[in-house]
């Protein structure tokens, strides 16, 4: 892999620093830089989450960045993993975690060999069980199991030889997963996959311990639907009371780990089997992590300000708090803002007139007031104006200054929009104002929480001079995403979504968002790019063809990581912005966190786009 040399160097530096500091300090970035003599470990971290995780911590189902952070920082180790720091500090790079070193690649590029660190054990009740190669096979087999992977991301693993056959029930094992011995694992792919390491840095590949010999799924046997409640940890933390789980009895009679009460709380305690000696990636400062689920967004941030709560995991900092913390000198070191590698956008459905006409879509891009959208969201703190689709880190900043629809102050340019609209077939008299009935009452779906309704009003306002009127439906967030994804809904505009990278490669944007494999019923190609005419007909559209970028996506996915691959994704980005125009991207999101006074250290995990929970140091929180 290209990144090997850099990786090794950084690891070496880290080791030196860690040794010098004696376990405390350093490590991550953030606004708090403690003195080197201060010991940051210990204490209880008190966090709050507005909503529970989406699939009760089942690793094969959870496709949610918050859960991914819990897995990465705390519960699950994987072959490769991240350091929980910003991109500049190496947070987008992967390092060996359970693997002893970077994998070696075969001559034909199709087979990867991982060596597994010996002597690592699971958390209680499986603390006598060593982590071996077979455990990873088990995880991949569960990833392929259609009953277990509902809502997950198994599509990233189709590239493993025999994966799809196993998933379809045509084989009883995955050919491409080969256990050479207890500590050596061979993975064979069907085509060169340069980013294989990233795919094995995700929670669904975390090892699953065996149980009765012969039980294919190990401890997950009999828990197709809810293994998360019975999760056996491999990271620095585990659910409180995990040791009481008994896997020797019938799965139906087993009782869940008491530390996680769905909808109410998550309590993590230290995993006695984990040792910092074997783990360079995690600092694991708090002794105990208590997470309360539920509450009101603004109220929770008030509690953080008052010090009765340390951190809000999934809230949105209210604009007035942003203002307070940005302008008050005493508070400025308690607010952290980091680009989260996500883009916010309005998507077009290219099968719904008038958006089947590229000129209308371009006119829309010209007239769009991106500055206004950002202001309604909270101003410059919440992100940077987006001039293109892929976040810059995925393109190695090649397109950092590229903005084909740039306007003065990013507020939109009506004249340019009209010039574009005049070329459209929906503007019969060529005056720049759409006069066709297709431009009236366009079905628009958006979120109903602030600031989306306000943004929708702004949208209505600046579209009106173009002759476009909207019929806006405000929906609850989950329902909104579902409707936007559902090709049968015939919505024309989806105005509330955002999309973040799954890992630092452009394929995590290109494939789900613009490739035909991301179409309904799969996820997230709302623009219907690449849909065949049969598909369009089956969904009830009268439009018979839409553009496709499948070829380009395939081309880029096949390239080795490196400059060629970056350039390829950048080309796709240009093509999308200038020729296909499926979206108006308006913001590159910034994750804003405010911290309570008790937090003495903060690090932003670029992988999940959130704070690294294990690095929130609260040494004084002992009760």
């Amino acid at each position: 892999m290209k990144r090997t040399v850099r990786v090794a160097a950084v690891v070496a530096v880290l080791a030196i620093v860690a040794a010098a500091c004696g376990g405390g300090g350093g490590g991550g970035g953030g606004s708090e830089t403690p003195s080197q003599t201060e010991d940051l470990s210990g204490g209880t971290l008190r966090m709050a989450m507005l909503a529970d995780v989406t699939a009760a911590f089942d690793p094969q189902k959870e496709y949610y960045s918050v859960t991914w952070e819990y897995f990465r920082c705390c519960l699950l180790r994987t072959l490769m993993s991240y350091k929980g720091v910003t991109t500049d500090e190496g947070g987008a790079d992967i390092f060996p975690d359970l693997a002893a070193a970077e994998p070696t690649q075969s001559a034909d590029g199709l087979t990867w060999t991982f060596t597994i660190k010996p002597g690592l054990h699971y958390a209680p009740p499986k603390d006598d069980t060593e982590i071996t190669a077979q455990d990873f096979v088990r995880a991949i087999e569960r990833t392929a199991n259609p009953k277990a992977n509902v809502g997950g991301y198994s599509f990233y693993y189709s590239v493993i030889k025999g994966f799809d056959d196993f998933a379809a029930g045509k084989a009883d094992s995955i050919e491409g997963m080969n256990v050479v011995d207890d500590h050596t694992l061979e993975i064979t792919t069907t085509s060169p996959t340069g980013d294989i390491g990233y795919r094995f840095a995700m929670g669904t590949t975390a090892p699953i311990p065996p149980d009765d010999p012969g039980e294919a799924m190990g401890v997950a046997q009999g828990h197709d639907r809810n293994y998360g409640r019975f999760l056996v940890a491999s990271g620095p933390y585990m659910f409180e009371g995990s040791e009481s789980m008994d896997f020797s009895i019938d799965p139906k009679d087993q009782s869940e780990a008491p530390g996680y009460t769905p909808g109410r709380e998550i309590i993590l305690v230290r995993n006695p089997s984990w040792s910092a000696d074997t783990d360079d990636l995690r600092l694991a400062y708090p002794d105990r992590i208590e997470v309360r689920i539920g509450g009101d967004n603004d109220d929770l941030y008030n509690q953080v300000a008052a010090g009765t709560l340390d951190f809000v995991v999934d809230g949105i900092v209210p604009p007035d708090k942003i203002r307070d913390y940005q302008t008050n000198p005493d508070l400025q070191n308690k607010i952290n803002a980091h680009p989260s590698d996500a883009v916010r956008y309005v998507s077009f459905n290219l099968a719904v007139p008038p958006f089947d006409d590229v000129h209308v879509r371009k006119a829309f891009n010209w007239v769009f007031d991106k500055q206004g959208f950002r202001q309604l969201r909270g101003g410059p703190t919440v992100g940077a104006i987006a001039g293109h689709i892929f976040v810059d880190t995925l393109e190695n900043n090649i397109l950092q200054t590229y903005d084909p629809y740039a306007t003065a102050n990013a507020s939109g340019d009506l004249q340019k929009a009209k010039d574009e609209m005049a070329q459209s077939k929906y503007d019969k008299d060529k005056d720049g104002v759409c006069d066709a009935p297709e431009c009236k009452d366009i079905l628009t779906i958006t979120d109903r929480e602030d600031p989306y309704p306000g943004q929708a009003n702004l949208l209505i306002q600046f579209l009106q001079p173009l002759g476009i009127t909207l019929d806006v439906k405000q929906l609850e967030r989950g329902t909104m995403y579902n409707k936007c994804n559902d090709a049968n809904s015939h919505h024309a505009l989806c105005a509330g979504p955002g999309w973040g990278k799954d890992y630092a490669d452009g394929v995590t944007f290109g494939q789900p968002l613009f490739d035909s494999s991301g179409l309904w019923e799969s996820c997230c190609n709302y623009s219907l790019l690449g849909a065949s005419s049969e598909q369009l007909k089956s969904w009830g559209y009268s439009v018979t063809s839409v553009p496709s970028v499948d070829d380009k996506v395939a081309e880029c996915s096949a390239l080795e990581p490196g400059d060629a691959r970056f350039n390829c994704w950048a080309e796709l980005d240009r093509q999308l912005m200038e020729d296909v125009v499926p979206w108006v991207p308006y913001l590159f999101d910034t994750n804003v966190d405010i911290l309570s006074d008790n937090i003495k250290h903060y690090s932003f995990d670029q992988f999940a786009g959130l704070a690294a929970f294990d690095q929130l140091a609260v040494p004084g929180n002992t009760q």
Partner: protein
Amino acid sequence: MSRSDTDTDVSETGQPEVAEATDFEAGELSTEAPASIIGRSPWEIFWRHFREDKFAIGGIVIIILMIAMAILAPVFADLSGHKPNQVNLSALDSFGLPSAPTWWPDQKDPTTGEKIKEAPKSYLLGVDKTGRDLFVRIAYGARTSLIVAFGATGIALVIGVLLGLMAGFYRGKIDTVISRTTDVVLALPILLLALGIASACNATAEGCLGGLIKQGLLPVILIIGFFSWPYISRIVRGQVLSIREKEFVEASRSLGASNTRIILREILPNVAAPIIVYTTLIIPSNVLFEAGLSFLGVGVPDTTPSWGGQLASAGTAFTYAPWLMIFPGLALFLTTLAFNLVGDGLRDALDPRKAV
């Protein structure tokens, strides 16, 4: 949700009353016939009492003002240059937070110590969280409240009078069925069901009843009307029960009048007065009902200004923009108060024995 206190009062119509006699001093007798013994119709007496009730007159004034504001809302929009849904970003500060009206007492932001940004003068009451003119929206909100209140009350009136008349007049089985139904509807958990219906019809893109009823004012009017008719039907039934025994009805019947004729010509005019009174007392609770539904997010959509909806979004903002909470709430309160005052006045004027 509020309710009116109409269901405990089943009063009778006012009796023809002798006009005020002049006061007699104790022990004094006048030899003159009191000049002011003139027969007056019940309506005239009614008006006299009502006119003297200062609070009720005040209520009427407020109602007229609110109706005027509702009618003139587009005029205000033109004069100030801001439409009700017009987003004006320059009235928000760089963090997207709303600015105060110019006459708002100079306040320092509690944390930063800086002055809160002021909106341009044309915004009489400042702007809301998305930069819209608060005063114009309050004026349009009057439309929503009044249309829904009158509409819903109208529906309740029609259904309630119809059923009440039938129950009171025909008695027997019809009465039993209608009365039981009324009891059941009264016993239903109104808010829960209203929330459910409202969310089904108002919160989804498709609407309900096979797409017949879409998001907007109509579902709200129907829901509120459906839950208010029992009060009216009960009153009407009680009235009809007492009236049908009266001599003039018997007289009419003996003359061969059909049931319909009797209902329309004898009974209805005599129950009209209490019907009006109790209907007026239902209006304020319907105003609050709509506001409550909008507050909970299942009333009218956001693009239709509603005082309840405005209060909902003001709830999280009052620490930095209290005007968003104060003014819509004040408008709502005054309107409801006005209707209550008028309703009280009408009721007291109707039956002076019970009057204060």
